[in-house]
């Protein structure tokens, strides 16, 4: 009896899956600023949707029944919410584009990789780490070049026509008023905070894979050069979770080295400017406050003004329209606001269950918890695809996990340095 064609031998990483996943992560780094003509639909979203279609047709991916069911329920109910909104809400603001974009962005979360073995996971995460490391090096280089006296320029703006660049983001800005040093966006980043987040994820990957401390230091330096707390937040939450798992035994060396590096770093100007941001949440108008406090303060009274608003929501995209009307730069819409303000409690709960379930069954608890916390507290994590992508790449597509969590059964030195040879029949 011949082995059925297409079934992998389970002793090694499935190379096509590894290649495919690393390519997606590379695309999230390199293509994040590009858009289709008009500057609204990111090229990255189109590329990932096309890649998922390819993966479905070639058997690299399949639909996950549970997530697909939850998605259909959430998408159906949020679309149907227009009926009670029209009937009960005074002048609802319903944007078909907003609903469509939301559902398109989260459609890939209904998929799962077919080959989710531990070997495949380690090989894929390892490949992604190298891309993250390259991003970290670029972030550090950008800072060093500026410190050497070469002023910041945006090379993409010279090469790509403006209508093919994603609009509405602050690509970078000086680290403080009057400074000629700009926050590092590694030249390719949509915002320093997004690069910081990607580097934070890379740092966690490095810890999970027990990579060389030197490489991790480079990634950490990259985060510092972005002067953004997004990556620090991800790393801190992730490390905190790891400390509650059996993985802590292999983590102490990193923690001690990291603490020493942190103390040294806080003596530098870059470290000090990052450190000052730790308490900025208390300041009205600060970036953190505009992400985590002020959106609630502004939209809560409007949401609770009428019980119908609470039940059915004010319409897809209404929170964005109202926030845009404030003309407050940097005022973002956190995920809970987006879900419940726009769609109300009835459809919003279905949507929230789907979104939360996308983190369930992940192969790494620290990655799942840190990305979830970031998306639901700090980031506009439901509608910005470049922020959703890490969740898909490192959490959702690997769920339900095929093996024990990495934190429970940590990667051995041998696994980290010499991945098993793939045998694909």
């Amino acid at each position: 009896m011949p082995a059925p064609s297409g079934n992998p031998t389970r002793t090694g990483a499935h190379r096509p899956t590894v290649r495919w996943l690393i390519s997606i992560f590379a695309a999230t780094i390199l293509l994040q600023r590009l858009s289709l003509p008009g500057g609204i639909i990111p090229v990255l979203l189109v590329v990932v949707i096309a890649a998922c279609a390819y993966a479905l047709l070639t058997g690299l991916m399949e639909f996950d029944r549970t997530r697909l069911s939850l998605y259909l329920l959430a998408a159906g109910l949020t679309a149907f919410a227009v009926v009670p909104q029209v009937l009960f809400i005074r002048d609802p603001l319903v944007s078909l584009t907003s609903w469509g974009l939301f559902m398109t962005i989260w459609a890939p979360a209904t998929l799962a990789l077919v080959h989710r073995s531990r070997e495949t996971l380690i090989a894929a995460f390892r490949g992604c780490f190298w891309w993250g490391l390259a991003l970290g090096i670029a972030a550090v280089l950008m800072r060093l070049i500026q410190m050497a006296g070469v002023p910041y320029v945006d090379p993409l703006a010279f090469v790509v026509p403006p209508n093919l660049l994603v609009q509405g983001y602050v690509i970078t800005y000086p680290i403080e008023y009057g400074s000629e040093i700009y926050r590092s966006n590694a030249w390719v980043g949509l915002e320093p905070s997004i690069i910081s987040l990607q580097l934070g994820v890379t740092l966690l990957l490095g810890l999970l894979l027990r990579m060389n401390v030197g490489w991790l230091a480079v990634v950490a330096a990259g985060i510092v050069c972005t002067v953004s707390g997004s990556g620090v937040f991800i790393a801190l939450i992730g490390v905190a979770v790891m400390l509650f798992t059996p993985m802590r035994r292999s983590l102490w060396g990193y923690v001690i080295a990291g603490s020493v590096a942190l103390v040294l770093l806080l003596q530098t100007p870059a470290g000090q400017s990052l450190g000052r941001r730790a308490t900025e949440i208390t300041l009205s108008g600060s970036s953190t406050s505009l992400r985590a406090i002020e959106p609630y303060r502004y939209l809560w009274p409007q949401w609770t003004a009428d019980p119908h608003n609470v039940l059915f929501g004010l319409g897809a995209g209404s929170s964005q329209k109202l926030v845009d009307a404030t003309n407050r730069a940097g005022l973002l819409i956190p995920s809970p606001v987006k879900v419940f303000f726009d769609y109300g409690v009835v459809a919003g709960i279905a949507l929230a269950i789907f979104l939360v379930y996308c983190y369930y069954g992940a192969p790494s608890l620290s990655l799942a918890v840190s990305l979830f916390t970031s998306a639901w507290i700090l980031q506009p994590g439901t509608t910005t695809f470049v922020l959703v992508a890490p969740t898909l790449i490192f959490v959702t597509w690997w769920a339900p996990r095929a093996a024990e969590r990495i934190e429970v059964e940590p990667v051995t030195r041998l696994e980290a340095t010499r991945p098993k040879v793939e045998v694909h029949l």
Partner: protein
Amino acid sequence: MTTATHGNDHGLSIRSLVGLLRRNVLLLTVGTLIGILAGLGATSLNRQYAATVIVEVAPGSDVGQTSTLVQSAASVLVSPIVIDTAAKDLGVDSSTLSAEVTSTVQAGTNLINVSAVSDSDQSAVDAATKVVNVALNDYRARSQERASQVRDAGSELLANGSLDQTRAEAARQSSIGSVVGSSQGQAIQDTVSVSVASPALSAYRVGVSRPIGVILGAAAGFLIASLVALSRSWNRRRPIKTLSDLEYAGRMGGVLIETPLRAAGHALNAAKPAVLVLGADPATRESLARTVMTSMQENGTHTALVVVTENAGPIDRTGEYTWEVGDDQVNTVMSRARRRRLPDELDVNTVVMCAPISGQTNAYLAGQDDYVAFVAVKRGTRVAAAEDQFRLVMAADPIAVLTD
């Protein structure tokens, strides 16, 4: 050949999903139509119109003061006293009018939108216009009152004070008169600082347009119907009608799925000395076994069919290429087949052996490579029953064949 999802109870291939949707076209169509009707009905039933009057507030001495004046005016425009008076004039309830009218500052300007939403276009225009008129009248009344207060105070000052010298008195009166006039002007300016920049000449439709309601309704109907179709496919008690149903039954072990003719082709290509056709139903497995045998013979492979029959004796010829063997002889026959002796003894290239799924046959399945193993599943078998069969013969990496 289709492979059921490899070792994943949650997985669903794109082919299965498309098949599922195709089998439920009626359900999806009905769901979509219901959604369209719901969207259409809601947007048609609830026609709302809005009319907006744009009010301009005179700027103050600086940006901060202007902003304060604009915010104050926005509040006063829809204050209870204004709404109550306007409601009385319009002949509607105050609470109703209050819910219909809003005032919103246009960000970064000194303009205020006073909007009224109503079921008819004319009542929206009337409501917005009336509220603004009442508010402006209120402003004017208050400014007149303020001006007259200043005038009265000045008159009293002029009347009550006196000087000995006539010229001094004239100068004093002239000076006080000038101050009073200036105060009156300032009082009027401070109060009457609001005017209509753009009246509400007509109303416009608000809320959700009919196309958007229809599109979202259709999407909702389709998505919910898809969910119903998907959840129906999870029912393990449903009968197997299609290859996709069989694929779902075989999902746990990554069982391969085939039609009878393609299974025969697979047996031919494999060129093994024995083809084992297993199955719970005797007629179904024999039907598949005969299909395979016939196909192989037509393609030039000398093939014998050995049917395991309850209570039959040692191997016994029953036809030109068919033999029968008792179920207690299965061990012997399979052992001979494995050693390639049986095909030689029967003077054929391949033996197609048709047997029930039992402990005896299963004992020979693990790790063997002399057989191609098929499991014949009768159309109409319940998914759970097929799963039970697959579980028993999993060691043989069988190919499941949907058989009529």
